[in-house]
């Protein structure tokens, strides 16, 4: 991972409280926003349960009531903490790779 911040779109390109998938170099990355687009998270788009590129399409939810957030994979509903990448459902599934996100001038930047 270089220290480069790569722009992946305007904040208005992303739907509120949902994920969007971006292509950066060869990687597919799921970018989520919550709390009226004030908080942003990014994880790999590949769900490691069955190796499918779908995580950006999952439903978001509160995680453990401690101010954290999670995504539920649309295929089999495996839950992942989108800040830490941790797999939090039952079963032996890998954690997700996470990416730093920053917003500047209404633009979304990822460190990839």
């Amino acid at each position, binding site marked *: 991972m270089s220290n480069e911040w790569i722009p992946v779109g305007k904040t208005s390109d992303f739907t509120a409280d949902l994920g969007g*998938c971006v292509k950066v170099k060869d990687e597919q990355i799921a970018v989520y926003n919550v709390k009226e687009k004030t908080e942003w998270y990014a994880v790999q788009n590949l769900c490691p349960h069955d190796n499918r*590129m779908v995580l950006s399409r999952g*439903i978001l939810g509160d995680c453990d009531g401690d101010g954290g957030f*999670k995504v539920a994979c649309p295929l089999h509903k495996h839950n992942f903490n989108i800040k830490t990448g941790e797999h939090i459902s039952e079963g032996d599934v890998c954690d997700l790779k996470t990416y730093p996100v920053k917003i500047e001038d209404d633009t979304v930047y990822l460190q990839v």
Partner: protein
Amino acid sequence: MVGYKFCERLAEKDIDNQFQITAFCEEPRPAYDRVQLSKYFSGTTADELLLAQIDWYAENGIELHIGDKAHKVDLASKTVYSEQGRKLSYDKLIFATGSAPFVPPVPGIEKDGVFVYRTIEDLDDTIAYGKKAKSCAIIGGGLLGLEAAKAAQDMGAETHVVEFAPRLMPRQLDEVGGEILKDIIESRGIKVHLNKATKNIAGDGKVEKMEFADTSSLDVDMIVVSAGIRPRDEVAKEAGLEIGERGGILVNDNLQTSDPDVYAIGECALYNKMIYGLVAPGYQMADVVAEQLVGRSASFTGADMSTKLKLIGTDVASFGDIEPKIPHKNITINDPVAGIYKNLFISENGEKLLGGILVGDADAYGTLLQMYQNDMKLPAEPIQLILPSGDGVVASGTNILDFPDTAQICSCENVTKGDICQVIDDGAQSISDIKSATKACTGCGGCTQLVTDLFKAKLKEAGIEVNNNVCEHFDMTRQDMYQTIRATGIQTYNEFLGRHGKGTEGCETCKPAVASILASTWNKPILEQPHILDTNDAFLANIQKDGTYSVIPRVPGGEITPDQIIVIGQVAKKYNLYSKITGGQRIDLLGAKLGDLPDIWRELIAAGFESGHAYAKSLRTIKSCVGSTWCRFGVQDSTSLAIKLELRYRGIRSPHKLKSAVSGCTRECAEAQSKDFGIIATEKGWNLYVCGNGGIKPRHADLLASDLDEATLIKYIDIFLMYYIKTADKLMRTSTWMDQLEGGLDHLKEVVINNSLGINEELEEQMAHLVNTYECEWQNTLADPEKLKRFNHFVNTDDDDETVVFAQQRTQIRPVDDSERAQSNAIKS
């Protein structure tokens, strides 16, 4: 019934197979549930009333001779002779011959139009004559008479109950209780005449008028006599067994007759000067004899005549001694406005319950009966036992966990509190589990409330929280959510979470649940709130294992034109999709890329198609057979009706998917009986079946109503669907809903057909709103660039998802399988 129960109990207990059981049965069918006989008038078939199918007898080693009365017994040679010429010798003989209706010797009683109420044949005769009758009088205002009155009303006759005593149910109720019951019954349209002794039945060969001793009279077309029972002891008497003065085969504590190898149980037996006309004591007697036969000692020492039943939609219960001779006190609630009466008879020192009467609300019956039967000390404020309690939990002041383990909770199946606790400790997860393990609640159903209370109490004791909240973000059940959304007018999940929920973002459970309720209520386009939608709703398409989607346009009733088939074929070829016919009689196109969905649908909609909602928890399809239009057997036009109904209910979202079908005759080619609502044509109209299910746990639909005209059919379906939407839990199919619905099919019939909750007008209006605001959501989406923005795999490029790869199978595409994926990944790296 008691005879069957004896066979069942002995078969169970006789593990060494010592006994060969032969049963002679006068009626032309095996034992059936006489307690539920009134259901025969509202569509339940004789077969459905059977306590056990005829196979059960052979399977359990019982030789059953139906339609063959055992008409003679020779005690000396221990031989039984039957009407059809059978001759059998026995080691032990059991009389379970029941009783016959008592017909008072009133002049004119022999005229046409007079019926009794006991056997299926009686009911068939009554129904046949009832087709020509406008009015019907029931002689006898006791338990059975009131059941018969409901049946007469269900037949469509103007119904009168004529009772000799000054009140209804004179043996179970006191004066005030009888008065309140009379008011309730009259409010349901049945006229009650008390203090009437019938002196003469007038008419020209048939019933035309009843004349009473007080010189009044009543014009009626038919009469059902339900004025008491007389034990069937004639064979026993002729054989030489001792008979009571007023009938009944005399038995001792072991239920033996004057011949020690011959027993008598049920209504034909006379024990301690009593004939027991209720099912529960009869079942106890059957058990006592079965126990003795397998070598254990058991005796019958009488049974109380406690009873709880639903009469004409009203709960009535009576237990213990309601005319105590000893000094006592009464605790009474008398509410004629609400139609509720509760009267407890308490010992003078206030410590013991002697008896009680409940009319209109009998929820406390279970607890009270236990306290009475187990001689438990009353709480300090006994009135708490009958004050209304909010959620039907055990009356405050008592704790079901305080009952002794020996307390008999279910008397029909002899299940104690200890038995149930054991089953719960062993891991029972639900009332269904308890029912399967112990058979509690499967007889008369009277103990259901108590079993439920015990189950909840045990779980609570173990620290397992029992609530039905949708998830941790709301202190609400789905029903609470539904009610709140309708009442407040809230249109969005965000507002609902903010005002009624906890936390910031909700979760994948409450979001779709609320989305469904919002759709069922307001019917706005669902993509307006994309962040709360379940996987498939999110893109109006069914996601497949590889992240591609399937496309299914609606084909109402399964009818499609050649041109339409061609369009679908052309779209499939253009976008290189896999095509397959579905079980719902339409065509599925798979392998669509997310980004291609709008273009695909644009072409389909231009050709006149609309969304098939295959991706939604909503109405799916209404299948049909070709019906009377083409088929040589069809009796109605099933195809046209299926199309009409599918166009009416398309797009309606519900707790779970809804599937339906219309068959044009009884051959049922459209498989309507496995549907959430299914319609089968009859000569006269349509039969409506509900709550069927294919899937993991198949369930046959129940008959809700028969021979309906189209308008009534649609009205009933409207009400049924909105009632299900209003009251089901999240993701609950109609089959599960029916299985847990309190009162079951009977209750549902009362609600839909008789508007017993008074909400049907409202439900119909709610349905009308959904029908009137329907819009194809794909059409809506294609006109809205904002909604279309999400239909791309990537936000920042129009590139495809290169991980989606297809192979070939039988000339069409298919997703590559795991080994092919591994190979291509290996090549890549």
